[in-house]
């Protein structure tokens, strides 16, 4: 999604107060943005805590800062700056985090982001975006840019199945109607899930904004869930702090009864070995056979 990100920000660069700060990343992708922003493109060096603090200071002066780095270097390294400097002040800093989930593949565990939106969901005022497809990025940047407060944008790799046209971007989207279990997918897992359930009767929804307090389930989803009474949540994120857990609590609070509930989550590194994003998804049961088996086990139509 980096190319789409660059295009969206180049489009936005005419805004005189927009400033882009990178933690020394973006080689081979963000040069067009650097060219158009000139001195408003700032390589803040390998110092993410400072980068986020500087961005908070700039936002308090009415500028529009966007920070960019690999996801864990943002939410884990600079967590206190995100909490204190950005969120407690409700400042409109947009934190761009590349490589959600196992996105950095064989680069290893330090580069993966398996607990980002769970951790960040605990913070006040922070709005989280997890675009599902490359086609969502422009709308995501526009939506995050329009907020009065802070945003975290988890970028991944869109995998919209060939020949498929995604519905227009929305925080919650029905990707496909169905008569079977309701499958909810967070962000880029939407593509592989659509492929995996091609011949299944499941109804598939994509969620691209969290937490539920800022992105509540729409009525159409609630109606589908009341009818199906079976829910499967697919996420490239650990179970703790996941959308699945939030939805389980939401079902209890709102009185939506379920006969079946299943969460498919990142399992970390069960074999202790490393590989591509597909390898890690497969180890976690987040590949096509794993998703298919979990949904089929909930019953067909």
């Amino acid at each position: 999604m980096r190319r789409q990100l660059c295009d969206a920000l180049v489009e936005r660069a005419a805004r005189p107060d927009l400033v882009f700060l990178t933690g020394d990343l973006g080689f081979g992708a963000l040069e067009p943005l650097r060219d158009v922003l000139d001195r408003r493109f700032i390589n803040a060096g390998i110092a993410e805590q400072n980068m986020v603090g500087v961005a908070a200071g700039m936002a308090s002066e009415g500028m529009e800062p966007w920070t960019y780095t690999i996801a864990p270097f943002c939410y884990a390294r600079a967590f206190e700056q995100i909490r204190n400097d950005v969120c407690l002040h409700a400042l409109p800093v947009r934190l761009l985090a590349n490589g959600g989930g196992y996105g950095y593949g064989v680069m290893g565990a330090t580069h993966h982001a398996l607990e980002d939106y769970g951790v960040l969901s605990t913070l006040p005022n922070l709005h989280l975006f997890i675009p599902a497809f490359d086609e969502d990025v422009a709308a995501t940047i526009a939506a995050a840019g329009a907020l009065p407060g802070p945003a975290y944008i988890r970028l991944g790799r869109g995998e919209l199945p060939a020949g498929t046209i995604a519905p227009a971007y929305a925080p919650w989207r029905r990707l496909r109607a169905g008569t079977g279990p309701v499958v909810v997918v967070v962000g880029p897992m939407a593509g592989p899930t659509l492929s995996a359930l091609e011949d299944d009767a499941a109804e598939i929804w994509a969620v691209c904004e969290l937490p539920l307090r800022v992105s509540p389930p729409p009525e159409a989803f609630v109606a589908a869930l009341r009818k199906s009474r079976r829910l499967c949540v697919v996420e490239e994120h650990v179970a703790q702090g996941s959308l699945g857990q939030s939805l389980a609590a939401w079902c209890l609070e709102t009185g939506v009864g379920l006969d079946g509930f299943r969460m498919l989550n990142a399992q970390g590194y069960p074999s202790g070995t490393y590989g591509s994003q597909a390898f890690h998804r497969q180890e976690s049961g987040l590949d096509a056979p794993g998703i298919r088996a979990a949904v089929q086990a909930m019953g067909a139509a």
Partner: protein
Amino acid sequence: MAIRAQHVENAEVRAANADGARSADGTLASGLLRLARWRLLAMHHAAGVGHLGGNLSAFDAMMLLHHEMLRPQDRFVLSKGHAAGAYYVTLWSRGLITDAELDSFHGEGTRLAGHPPARGVPAIRFGTGSLGHGVSLAAGLALSMQLQDRPGHVFCLTSDGEWQEGSTLEALIFAAHNKLVNLTILIDNNRLQGFGTTRDVASMEPLASKLAGFDVEIREADGHDLADMRRALSAGRERPTLVVLHTVKGYGVPAIEGRMDSHYLPLTDDQYREAVTGIGGLGA
């Protein structure tokens, strides 16, 4: 302290302010500084809280900045948030926080917590308290002024122990590299930190020469000598400026001056009376 005594003091403080404790030439009058120091002691004593040592070491610099240096287009960031009391009283001395609000310091439902609040007090831009955040915030302010072609200068007050935080050094590298000539960082070099002297805990002494390796202008001053600080804070900068203020923890209160426990313990009634008398008899 009895509540009534507190009220008597507040009345005297207000009266003294009304009498014109400020100098006619715009400099910080010694009378106002004494008065404000007394208000700081009274506020802490009434609240029964400590952290007084690091408030008193930074107080003269904060008062000088707010009464002589800061113009409307300038900014101040208190990175050593545990000097919140000194900050509140300084703002009070400028008429930006009411006397009644100071009375709520550290109480239930107060806006004036032990560290500056992120929101709710218009004169305070940033909530701080976890060390190592202020210089980055200040750098963001200074860079914004440059990018927006606005005049203005940013002053950031740090503690000395705070330079053990890696993020402070990240911020210094950033400020120097981006030539933030409109940024002045002050270091309250009182040489005492949470559980020992800075020399014993994680020495960076001598701090000035350690930090001189960065591309910044280093100046030093006696942090309790207004004339010396004026000199060190004067303009003429071509690089970000770092002013090491040589200070005394608990300055002006003999019972706690230079003592470790001044970081934590409130003054006893006797110590408080002695301190107030030492300031010059106000309210004694």
